[in-house]
């Protein structure tokens, strides 16, 4: 479906949802780049209501039916998570409507608030420079840690987030994560990858115990945070969230995977400052051994992503060449994991 056609259909949808609105039109309608799992559209709706001119930014996230996470991604779950977070201190967009019927846009979608700010890609030259400059000013690094702490300090039961699944105490969390990504691998793999088998077996044997269950984002890094005036205005990309070990997010922040050449964690925060301030805000003790384990688990997860992506291309379900390219990333990530395991 072309972008103008999507815009037309969304206009019609919003007219139904905002019955008091008249003269409703959309402006600045764009399909944003990125998002291998979902199509994302942002725009402003302009309308008249009770004699006043209204303007509101919206973001539509649509399931294309052949996303990277295949059956592991639930748009409805994402909507419910964002909705549940609205009344908490976690900075998130407001969630408005979920539409399960694929008839309108060709797949389920939901509408949420378009949070003001920007989320520069930390792998681009401009993004690196953006975060390096912000780091020098000092406000964004603090906000980066505070937003993460707000997640991990959240009373997720009170927020009603236990519907996403709660692992048992002990080693269950890591085992559930391994099982989840192994199921994606099983759906995607086209030829045996013995190094991946060794990685999976090692992860299963060495699963760590969780010190405290928390609400975990699963991909907490710059690029997945909207930033306005040097502060995190919203945590976005709610697709990998779990109830689990907060060290899972901490490990992602500490990982070299997310800073490509920058001396700063996630291209924005000094390591020592992050460790000290996070522990102060959460009362949790960062266990670097456990984080190292999760970093290796992330390498397995990345392998699962790349196998899924290249598999979708090979199966003819997605023609995006970026997905085909990932077949060459599989040995690179497995090599990183092998080195981490000592071979």
């Amino acid at each position, binding site marked *: 479906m072309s972008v103008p056609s999507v815009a037309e259909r969304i206009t019609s949808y919003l007219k139904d949802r905002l019955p008091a609105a008249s003269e409703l039109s959309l402006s600045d309608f764009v399909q944003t780049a990125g998002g291998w799992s979902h199509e994302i559209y942002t725009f402003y709706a302009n309308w008249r209501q009770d004699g006043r001119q209204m303007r509101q930014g919206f973001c539509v996230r649509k399931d294309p039916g052949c996303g990277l996470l295949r059956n592991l991604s639930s748009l409805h779950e994402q909507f419910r998570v964002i909705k549940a977070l609205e009344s908490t201190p976690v900075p998130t967009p407001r969630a408005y409507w979920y539409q399960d019927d694929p008839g309108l846009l060709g797949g389920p979608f939901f509408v949420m608030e378009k949070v003001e700010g920007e989320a520069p890609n930390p792998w681009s030259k401009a993004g690196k420079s953006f975060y390096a400059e912000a780091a020098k000013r000092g406000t964004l690094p603090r906000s980066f840690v505070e937003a993460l702490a707000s997640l991990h300090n959240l009373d997720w039961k009170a927020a009603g987030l236990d519907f996403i699944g709660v692992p048992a105490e002990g080693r269950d969390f890591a085992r559930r994560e391994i099982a989840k990504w192994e199921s994606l691998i099983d759906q995607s793999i086209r030829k045996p990858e013995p190094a991946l088998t060794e990685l999976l077996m090692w992860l299963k044997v060495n699963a760590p115990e969780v010190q405290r269950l928390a609400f975990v984002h699963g991909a907490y890094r710059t690029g997945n945070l909207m930033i306005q005036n040097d502060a995190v205005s919203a945590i976005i990309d709610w697709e990998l969230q779990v109830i689990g070990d907060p060290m899972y997010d901490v490990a992602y922040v500490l990982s070299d995977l997310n800073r490509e050449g920058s001396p700063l964690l996630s291209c924005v925060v000094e390591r020592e400052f992050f460790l000290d301030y996070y522990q102060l805000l959460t009362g949790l003790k960062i266990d670097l051994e456990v984080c190292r384990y999760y970093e290796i688990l992330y390498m397995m997860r990345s392998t699962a992503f790349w196998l899924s992506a290249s598999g979708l291309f090979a199966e003819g379900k997605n023609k995006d060449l970026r997905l085909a390219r990932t077949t060459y990333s599989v040995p690179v990530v497995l*090599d990183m994991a092998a080195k981490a395991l000592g*071979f």
Partner: protein
Amino acid sequence: MLSAKLLVGEIVSSLRQVIGPAISEPYPKAQAYMAATILEFVARQIEERDGSDSKKAALLETLFDDIDRLGLPARIASPRARDAAALSELISNLYQVRSEIGESAFAAANLRVRQALRDLLSLDLEIAGKEGE
């Protein structure tokens, strides 16, 4: 007939220097550059395929010979075919019978398996690990 390497080089150059810059829409533009990157990988894949496949086969033969000599139970270490699938199965089996065979036997077999995995990965990286060269 021109060599495949030369042809691919010319297509890559055209995608990067002529076609890509001429496209204004972000998505097709990115696809053009991505096509160039993938073609470079594919060219190496074609060039190194025969050598790589035979080296992998030889590595697996040697590995399974060495594993045979470790005296592990036949049900876990004697596959019908000595291929990547058999190696994956061996790895799973080793972890599953770890307590049965004892820690030192496991460690010896796992060490040998990991040496083979390193060699196999290094062969894959000859194709996949050279982006932009």
